[in-house]
């Protein structure tokens, strides 16, 4: 678990550094306001439930799980 956290932290630093180096003010502002956690790793529980439901039943039958995961992402600070 700690190893995973370290791995997730390192790319975040690299990405933010890269964005700042490329440097317009807008980009820097966007980078600062973005959540630290990656969207792919946020809300793992609702994400797994959504993914497995869609594989087995199709997207139209899984709107409940899709919305649950979306709400969780918004709570984490993502703009979805």
């Amino acid at each position, binding site marked *: 678990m700690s190893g995973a956290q370290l791995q997730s932290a390192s790319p975040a630093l690299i*990405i933010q550094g890269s964005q700042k180096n490329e440097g317009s003010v807008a*980009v820097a502002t*966007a980078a600062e306001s973005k959540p630290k956690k*990656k969207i792919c790793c946020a809300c793992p529980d609702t994400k797994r439930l959504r993914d497995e439901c869609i594989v087995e039943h199709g997207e139209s039958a899984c709107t409940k799980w899709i919305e649950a995961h979306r709400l969780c992402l918004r709570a984490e600070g993502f703009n979805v």
Partner: protein
Amino acid sequence: MASIVSTKANQFRYSTRLLFSHLLRQGRPSTLSPPFSSHLQPLHHPYKVRNQSYGNGSLRLCQRFLSSSSSPPAANVSGEKPASDSDHSAKDGSGQGKESGSGGDEGQKSDAGKSVRGGPVSWLSFLLLVLTGAGLVDYYGEFSFLWLGMWGIRSNTEAVKQGPSVGTAAIGGFLGKWTLLYFGFTHCPDICPEELQKLAAAVDKIKEKAGIETVPVFISVDPERDTVEQVGEYVKEFHPKLIGLTGSPDEIKNVARAYRVYYMKTAEEDSDYLVDHSIVIYLMSPEMKFVKFFGKNNDVDSLADGVIKEVKQYKK
């Protein structure tokens, strides 16, 4: 890693612009190698249409894509439904029982079989198209024609109707291979690289353990940014056998729907958006049928062992 990807993205964005303008001026892909152009003459037709009127051409091509994809595999699907259904139920039942021992999950698997059958879009039809494209790439050993490969999909579909030999040759070159599919995007910060590394390691481990050849395939869910060059360079970093595919937004939408992969762009203002997408690896049989999916929780060993088990069961 991320900064390198970002730098490469800028470079390929520039080179893509040059390439595209060059193609527009010339009117045909001059970079095509002689064997490719000589063997796949129908390829020129879709390209010209696209050049003449991009917007309308795209719409017409998509319509043709949908209509052509539905009719040829229909006979196969109807003929093989009973067998595939029983196989699907048996495998899912045994696999799920061993993994979790839950009756409820087994019930869900049964429902999955039914819903797959009754889906509005046949898995087989789109799978056939995608693997045809992959077969083209594999046959010519080229990554730089991935986008053309997507066009080749439509050409080959038409060729199957008009000249079976051409279509059969292209498809035949790919049939008989087990395939592992993953949907991601090249700007993915970390989960896609992890999953692709897992996939690549599993491919090697499967061969080492059981002598079974599997073909890893990466399909992009970010058509706006993932060009042919971008995807080609990206997949090289993971495994020499990894085949990368991309396409137009409509094509990607159809493929993702057919494979039941969810993806959605974040509502960022600039081009630095993220794509939220399902994290699954699909195992497809040599007859291009869905066999099993593996989630993020599987590590290299469980993925490799799961594939080996399914392959051995399938042959019995």
